[in-house]
C-alpha cells in the first residue's frame, strides 16, 4: 500500500502546483549554465538545498507523530533558507499541500497554520503512514523530476533521454534519503548551502520572462 501511496503523492497530476516548479533550472540556464551540466546540477541540489528540504520533512514527520510543536521545525527551516524567494515559493507550495492534507487526511486537533512545503509534506507523511525515508525520497524525487521535466519545456529535447537521466539519478535520491531519514530534532537539520543556486533563484524572481515560478 505505501508504495502506491508514495507514487500517488509523487504524481505530478496532484493539484499542488508542481507544474510551476523547475527546481531552479530555469534560473540556472538564465545564469548561463550549459544543459550538459544538468545531472551535475541536480546532484549538487541533492547534496545541499534539497537535502535541507528533505531533512525538514523528515523532522516535521517525527514532530507531528510526537505531537510536538511544528513551529520550531518551521523556524529551523527558515533559518536554513536565506533566500526570501525560495521561502515564499515553499510557502506557496505548502498551501497546496496543506489543502490536500486537510481534505484527504483531516485532523481536528490543529489550528490552521501556514507551513512550508517540507513541513506540510512531513505532516502528510505522518498522517498517511509514510516512513521518514519515504518522505525524504519523495522530496528528492520531486526535485529531480521538476528539473528534468522543466528541461523539456525550456530546451526541447528527447523525452526518452530525459527519462533515462531521471532514472539514473534515483540512486542519488536514495543516498540522500539515507543520510536524513533518522533525524528527529530541528537542530539536526543540515544547513548545506549552495551560493550560486540561491543567488540565481533571487535574480530569476526579478526577471519578467519566465515559464516557472522557481
Amino acid at each position: 500500500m505505501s508504495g502506491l501511496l508514495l507514487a500517488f503523492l509523487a504524481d505530478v497530476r496532484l493539484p499542488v502546483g508542481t507544474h510551476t516548479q523547475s527546481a531552479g533550472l530555469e534560473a540556472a540556464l538564465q545564469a548561463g549554465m550549459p544543459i550538459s551540466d544538468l545531472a551535475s546540477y541536480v546532484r549538487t541540489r541533492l547534496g545541499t538545498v534539497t537535502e535541507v528540504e528533505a531533512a525538514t520533512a523528515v523532522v516535521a514527520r517525527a514532530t507531528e507523530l510526537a505531537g510536538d510543536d511544528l513551529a520550531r521545525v518551521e523556524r529551523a527551516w527558515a533559518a536554513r533558507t536565506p533566500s526570501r524567494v525560495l521561502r515564499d515559493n515553499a510557502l506557496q507550495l505548502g498551501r497546496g499541500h496543506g489543502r490536500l492534507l486537510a481534505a484527504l487526511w483531516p485532523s481536528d486537533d490543529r489550528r490552521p497554520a501556514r507551513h512550508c512545503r517540507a513541513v506540510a509534506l512531513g505532516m502528510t507523511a505522518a498522517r498517511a503512514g509514510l516512513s521518514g525515508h519515504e518522505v525524504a525520497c519523495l522530496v528528492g524525487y520531486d526535485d529531480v523530476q521538476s528539473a528534468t521535466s522543466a528541461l523539456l519545456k525550456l530546451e526541447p529535447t528527447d523525452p526518452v533521454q530525459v527519462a533515462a537521466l531521471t532514472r539514473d539519478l534515483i540512486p542519488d535520491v536514495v543516498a540522500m534519503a539515507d543520510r536524513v531519514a533518522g533525524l528527529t530534532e530541528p537542530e539536526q537539520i543540515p544547513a548545506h548551502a549552495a551560493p550560486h543556486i540561491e543567488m540565481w533563484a533571487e535574480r530569476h524572481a526579478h526577471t519578467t520572462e519566465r515559464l516557472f515560478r522557481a
Partner: protein
Amino acid sequence: MRTRIQVTPGPDRPQVELRGDVLAPRILATTPDGAEVAIVGTRMVLLAGDSVGIDVVVAPGGRLRIVEPVGTVAYGGPGSSQWDVSIELGAGAVLEWESQPFVVSDGADVTRTTRISLGADARLLQRETLVFGRSGQRGGSLVTRLDASGVDGPLLVEELDLRPDQRERVGILGDNRVLDSLLALGWRPGTPADLTAFELSEPGCLVRHVGHQHDHRPLDVCWFRWHGDL
C-alpha cells in the same frame, strides 16, 4: 588559549577586557559606550595545525568595532587548522566587524566556525571575504559553519562545504575563487538593487558577491550604507 575582547559600557568610559594569543587585540579608540579594537597577528597565522579562537562579548548597550589591518592567509602543510569565532551581544549591543580577506592557500585544510548570539535589539554587521588560492593557485579546503541565534531561536544557520571538488561544482561556486559576504543581523537594512541580497526570515540580510578575482568594491558600497544604520 583564545583571544578575547569584552566591552562593557561605563559612565565615563567603557571597561574593555582584552586577552591575546597569536592574535592580539589592540585598542584604537574608546567612547563612553564602546571601543574600536584592532586584531593583530603576533606571528604568522594561520599555519597548518593552528587552532585560533576569538571570543567577543559586548555587554548590553555596548558598542564595539573590530578592524583587521591585514588579511589572513591559511597556509598549507601537515595537519588541519581551525578558526573559531564566538560572538555574544547583549540587549541593544552593536558589533561591527570589518574583516579582511581570508585566503585559503593550496594544501590548507581549514574549518571555520562562527557562533553568534544576539540579545534583544542588538545589531551585528560582519563581512567575510573568502579567497581560494594565492595568485595562480587553485586553493585548499575550507568548510564553514555559521550558527546565529536570537532570543527566540535561530536567525541563520549555514554550512558551506568549500573543499576544491565540492566548491567547483555547478551551483556552488563553479570556477569562481572569491565568495564575499556581508551579514547584517538585528534589523532590516535597505539593499542596493545591483547586488544579490537575501532578506532573512528574521530581521537581517545577507548580501553575496561571487567573483574570479578579489574585488572589494561591490560590497563596499553596501557596507558603508549599512554602517550608517548602526
